[in-house]
């Protein structure tokens, strides 16, 4: 999932808001008990990997069918319409009702789902999918290739307001369609109702991931056409579950899709409750009113201390990074030595301790939680002397003053900003902290020459290094407004490596090129990579099948109830 404003308000809304309540209390509490609790939590998280916790729970048990899974979310979202859903709460729920051609296995490899087979032409410009026969929508009709064409055109149509629209602009004729010059996307073809052919304007390796996103899930074209905007209230898809009812802001229920024949779909009903905060949800979990909750730090500490509740905990490591960016177009960060000095001057290990185990240090642009990595990447070890020396070389013998922008509503960022402020004061840099709203990050951080430095974060959209390197640091993508490259980093070498990697259809060559690109970027130091978030989840002991997924994180359709 790619980050930014929407994510701020969306994907991590739940976890983040939950954390908001408790973090300051949990981490700044002066009482010895509190600190001991935090330490326990750190130790717990450090020694627990999700798989361990879950294997212990599931063992070799055979999943049981039936029962009602009760989920809880902090707040309502725009829609579970697959063209709209784009955050941590909605994607797993949208995936209950909507399935696509591709999916990911437990190692984050793309696998066919509703496609029986798929192929990419040697020039990388034509993607061809064969539909598995007998897959039906919840209302009974069989899924046809035309439904996929319809779904993709719907995402591309600006009137739909899909946040994923730009992912599909590589499709031939998408631009003309978007501008309303044609009423059909020429690159979407259906030689027969079992076959979907997608023609791209240029070779693309990453388009396969784009087709794995929920935006590309099939929707029943006749229902959507008939219902128009109100489809989002009467969602029908071909996924394992179907919507039973939904009360906005209150919650709803999903029941099993009787026509679904794929894996999972163990529980009969999935009830969703909305509202309240995470500490409250933790209590509801303990009383057995819900089955699963994303814990806030205070509850996490409480669960860690309790021998019984400790066994309910699990940690998920999403592919995410939070970083300190420096605007390379604005002094003093236009100076490479200054940027490197910042990298030496921030103590990430200390920072991680202050995050109470909810963030682990990270050194690359791409977090190592992605199944791709770069063993040769340069790493800056904390070294204040070196930092001061670099500042002196850069001509800042007495340091300088700067303003650090961060998102007020993200407690981990807020805490990180405070720790960075302390660290940098040690090397003579006086930092003013400016917390702003999620909405204001758009005009402040993403607009050219506005913020000299600040904190931002990114969650993967798909498990490919291009999703970090190309999206966040490619200089050719810089725009004056709404720019994802907040460092406004523009290195000819880096850009070229990215372009080469993007054009390459050879997996290992792409990987190598991206490794080189990452090393270039780290040497140029537009960022100080800070930490990768970790989520602490608690499950009711009766809930099974909770292993974290490397891309989807959690899949409710795989969960089942032991009693």
């Amino acid at each position, binding site marked *: 999932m*790619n*980050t*930014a*404003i*929407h*994510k701020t*308000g*969306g994907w991590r*809304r739940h976890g983040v*808001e939950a954390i908001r309540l408790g973090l300051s209390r949990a981490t700044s509490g002066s009482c010895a008990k509190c600190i001991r609790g935090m330490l326990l939590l750190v130790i717990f998280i450090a020694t627990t990997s999700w798989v361990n916790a879950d294997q212990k729970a599931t063992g070799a048990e055979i999943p049981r069918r039936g029962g009602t899974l009760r989920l809880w979310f902090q*707040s*309502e*979202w*725009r*829609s579970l319409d697959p063209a709209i859903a*784009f955050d941590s709460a909605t994607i797993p729920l949208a995936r209950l009702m909507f399935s696509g051609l591709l999916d990911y296995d437990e190692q984050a490899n793309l696998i066919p789902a509703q496609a029986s087979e798929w192929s990419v032409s040697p020039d990388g410009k034509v993607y061809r999918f064969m539909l598995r026969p007998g897959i039906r929508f919840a209302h009974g009709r069989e899924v046809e290739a035309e439904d996929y064409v319809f779904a993709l055109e719907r995402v591309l149509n*600006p*009137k739909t*307001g*899909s*946040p*994923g*629209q*730009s*992912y599909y*602009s590589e499709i031939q004729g998408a631009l003309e369609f*978007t*501008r309303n010059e044609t009423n059909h996307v020429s690159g979407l073809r259906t030689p027969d109702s079992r076959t979907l052919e997608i023609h791209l304007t240029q070779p693309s390796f990453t388009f396969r991931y784009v087709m794995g996103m929920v935006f590309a899930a099939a929707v029943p074209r006749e229902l959507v056409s008939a219902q128009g*905007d109100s489809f*989002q209230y009467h969602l029908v898809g071909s996924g394992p579950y179907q919507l039973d009812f939904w*009360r*906005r*802001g*209150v*919650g709803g229920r999903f029941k099993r899709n009787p026509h679904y024949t794929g894996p999972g779909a163990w529980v009969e009903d999935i009830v969703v*409750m*909305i*509202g*309240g*905060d995470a500490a*409250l*949800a933790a*209590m*509801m979990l*303990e*009383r057995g*009113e819900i089955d699963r909750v994303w814990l806030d730090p205070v509850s996490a500490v409480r669960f860690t201390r309790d021998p019984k509740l400790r066994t309910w905990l699990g940690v998920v490591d999403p592919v995410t990074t939070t970083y300190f960016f420096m605007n390379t177009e604005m002094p003093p960060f236009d100076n490479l030595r200054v940027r490197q000095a910042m990298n030496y001057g921030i103590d990430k290990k200390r920072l991680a301790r202050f995050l109470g185990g909810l963030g682990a240090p990270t050194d690359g642009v791409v977090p190592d939680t992605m199944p791709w990595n770069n063993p040769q990447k340069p790493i800056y070890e904390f070294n204040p002397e070196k930092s001061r020396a670099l500042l002196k070389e850069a001509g800042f013998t007495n340091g300088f003053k700067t303003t650090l922008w961060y998102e007020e*509503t993200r407690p981990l960022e807020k805490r990180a900003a405070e720790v960075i402020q302390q660290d940098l004061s040690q090397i003579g840099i006086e930092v003013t902290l400016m917390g*702003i*709203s*999620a*909405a*204001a990050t*758009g*005009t*402040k951080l*993403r607009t050219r020459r506005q913020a000299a430095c600040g904190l931002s974060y990114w969650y993967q959209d798909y498990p490919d290094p291009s999703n970090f390197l190309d999206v966040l640091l490619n200089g050719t993508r810089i725009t004056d407004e*709404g720019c*994802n490259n907040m460092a406004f980093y523009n290195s000819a070498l880096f850009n070229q490596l990215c372009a080469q990697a993007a054009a390459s259809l050879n997996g290992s060559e792409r990987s190598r090129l991206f490794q080189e690109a990452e090393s270039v970027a780290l040497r140029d130091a537009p960022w100080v990579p800070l930490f990768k978030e970790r989520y602490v989840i608690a499950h009711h002991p009766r809930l099974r099948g909770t292993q974290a997924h490397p891309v989807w994180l959690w899949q409710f359709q795989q969960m089942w109830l032991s009693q």
Partner: protein
Amino acid sequence: MIKRLFTRLLWSVTTLMGTAVLTFLLINVAPGDVARVIAGPKASPDVIKAIRARYHLDEPLWKRLGFHLGQLARGDLGHSFVTDQPVSEAILSRLPTTASLASLAVCLWMFLAVPLGVYTARHQGTWLDRSVLVAATLTLSLPAFWLARMLQYWMSYKLGWFPVAGFRGFWHLVLPALTIAILAVGYYARLIHTNMVQVLDSAFIRAARARGASESAVLFRHALPNALIPVVTILGMDIAFLLGGVMFTENVFALPGIGTLAVQSVFNLDVPVIMGTVMFSALAIVIVNLIVDMLYSWIDPRVRAV
């Protein structure tokens, strides 16, 4: 009577207009690109443009204000940025929850406050009278959030007498209503006490006693209705506030009412919903005021003649 009603209505409309303009300006001068918040960071310029047009975000502020007021005049509160649901629908769908909570709370506290107020007025200086006074002072300064949490922790979480949170039936309303009732009962008991003491001292009470009316007739038929007349105004205001959303209590107990809607909309920067809930609160206050006014002439015959 008609003239008074007309004046009141005029005032109400002015109040609502003022509220509308003020909220609009307050929220819209806050920085931030709302269209991007709605559309997401990767939204193409076309999508952003479509969204700006849809929510009229591309117009100058004064034009948007005019449009907003025009919308309001037609009873249209716009669409939520987050859920795209019509705001009026969002509010109305949550009104039953808030209204049930409010009525249950009002019933609970009046049910307790009336006997307490009457008893303590009749038996001044007793230990109960003193305790009610102390309790009233204490509960007035009690934070709703804290009390709700405490009740929830002990009664639901520890003892399991009530569900912790959520709304799936009457039982889910009891503890939240109790929270509100506890916060209000002391104040109302004292209010009724004070009015009762005053009324019990009046000549018509002595006259009633002189006619041989029983003590309960004196208290409940003669004194109480008179003592409750001033309570109606305050009760009306409180009901209006409750309908506007019991922010803390609703949020603590995760009740899907107008209060949680308001809080969520602020977290999400959901401007139309923020404005909608504010307008609804203002409307509730204005309407309840009008109703109280009408009610007055019904419960207090003296007002009718004015």
